[in-house]
């Protein structure tokens, strides 16, 4: 039971990152490998705001989300748009985003150096006891902020004009163009929102792990795994996949073997892909490949 509970906060992080992958993939059909490095950027920028500008936690979170969101737009503008214009094969798009990841990661290394930075938790470190179980306040904060962000995203996608346009493009790009939707704008919005979600995940996870230039690689990959296990291209499925993966990891690491924890995760992934390519939490099998 304690393992289950321990899995929730990391699951919430994975859910945020999974959401960011899923959002971009649904909206623009792009598999964006630089998503993990947006997490890293979010953590560093949050750290900078917190440490040098003495922002409060909320302000640092919003500031980092805004800045990283702008970087997301930049990536869409400078890299995705020319690729689309040339109708480049999908593999080229994948490699371009991998290139973005390499550049971002090493830029962070050049700027902030190889040492891990310690990001102080905004809440007290005394754990809370619920019956026989205990949770840290930071864990509660992670889960609460993550859920809040998911609700905000849901509202933006369902209720605002831009959000509706984005969903229309996701459903049928060609039809959306005919209806007068600016697909470039909706792509930019998807990239911005995804990057901002990643940044939020970065700040939330920073007090738990250390902030390092390559922290994004692991989290990014796990977030992608969570998105696919849940069901790529569907937002609730991505969230469910995130929490599911967090719990599986926690249980596998605690009960079976910590060394093989990731191997178990990937084996599970291949199994899911083999048996249910549309993901665990999607009922309909939709051909989106």
């Amino acid at each position: 039971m304690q393992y289950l509970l321990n899995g929730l906060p990391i699951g919430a992080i994975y859910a945020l990152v999974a959401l960011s992958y899923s959002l971009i993939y649904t909206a623009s059909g792009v598999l964006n490998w630089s998503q993990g490095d947006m997490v890293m950027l979010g953590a560093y920028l949050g750290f900078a705001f917190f440490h040098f500008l003495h922002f409060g936690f909320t302000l640092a979170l919003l500031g980092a989300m805004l800045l990283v969101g702008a970087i997301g737009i930049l990536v869409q503008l400078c890299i995705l748009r020319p690729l689309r214009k040339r109708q480049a094969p999908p593999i080229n798009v994948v490699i371009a985003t991998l290139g973005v990841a390499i550049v971002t990661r090493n830029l962070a290394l050049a700027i902030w150096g190889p040492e891990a930075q310690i990001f102080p938790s905004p809440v007290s470190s005394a754990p809370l006891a619920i019956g026989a179980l205990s949770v840290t306040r930071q864990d509660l904060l992670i889960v609460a902020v993550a859920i809040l962000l998911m609700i905000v995203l849901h509202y933006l996608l369902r209720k605002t004009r831009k959000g509706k346009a984005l969903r229309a493009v996701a459903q049928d790009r060609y039809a959306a163009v005919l209806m007068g939707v600016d697909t470039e704008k909706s792509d930019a919005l998807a990239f911005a929102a995804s990057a901002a979600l990643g940044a939020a995940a970065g700040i939330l996870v920073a007090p738990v792990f250390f902030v390092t230039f390559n922290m994004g690689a692991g989290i990014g990959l796990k977030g992608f795994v969570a998105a696919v296990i849940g069901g790529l291209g569907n937002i609730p499925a991505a969230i469910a996949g995130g929490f599911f993966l967090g719990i599986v990891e926690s249980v596998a690491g605690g009960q079976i073997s910590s060394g093989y924890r990731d191997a178990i995760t990937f084996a599970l992934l291949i199994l899911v892909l083999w048996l249910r390519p549309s993901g665990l939490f999607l009922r309909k099998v939709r051909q989106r490949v």
Partner: protein
Amino acid sequence: MAIENTGKKLVLLLAVAVPLLLPLLVSNNYYLHVINLAGIYTLIAIGLNLLSGYTGQVSMGQAGFFALGTYVAGLLAINLGIPFWAASLAAIAACALCGAAIAIPAMRLSGPYLVLATVGFGEIIRLILLNWTPVTRGAAGLTAIPLPKFFGWQCSSEAQFYYLIFSFVLLGTYVAYRLAHSKVGRTFAAIREDELAAEAMGVRVNRYKSAAFVLSAIYAGMAGALYGAFSGVASPDNFTFDDSVAFLCMSVIGGSRTIVGALIGSFMLTGMSEALRALQTYRLILYGGILIFTVIYMPQGLAGLAATVRARLRRTAGRSAAASTGGEGKA
């Protein structure tokens, strides 16, 4: 015409002579070492081109097969003293089996799903190598992998390894070239272009897709066996996700739909990576930038670019020839 023929013969002569005499021309052992490494990566990239470029199945887990090849051949040589050729065969067999196994889930997948499944495969192999300490020696990895020996002749210097690796690259290129220009190659391309249509034409799609996986695994496995013997040491750190990405980049940057593209890509990226070493931290920033630039502006890779340039030159040459004959006609 005669001049053009002589030119072609000269190019062919150079293409044969330069690689054969290279160790005599390059006296610097470091350069030769980098060339040898690029040769080993060429084998992996050729396999990837058959798998991804021809058949359209993108793999980001080739480091897994590469690792398997290195460890199987290396462990057999270290623990049992098995000669290089037999250990290589065992490595190839192990990789082929593994390739066939991963092809079972892979043939139902495409796009990001396939990419992720292959990433998962590569990571599983790496984590097993890291954690199965009694057999794989864990994070410390393999040390003192014996040098290859053929009929009492031991391969030890960079130049000797050059000839060993060069012969495998030659063989690998030849086999892949013949395959790519045969019915098999055309079937691979048909599957890439439209799987459903190929199936409707009576192509056994799944069989060919698995065959491509097995082939790419064999190439990576042979590369692994050579790598272990060549470097003498190997640890799980040599076979990470980043390495898989690098192999895929070699394939795509060189031009994944040609065999020669694998050669170009691996030599380009290996050489570039070494040449940029002086820049230290900025090396990978530049490297990433070049990757982005290449995939945007040379979508078919360097081999594709060369083909476009050649076609354009031919067209201009044709036009000027037509213009000159036209002029003669008038006169």
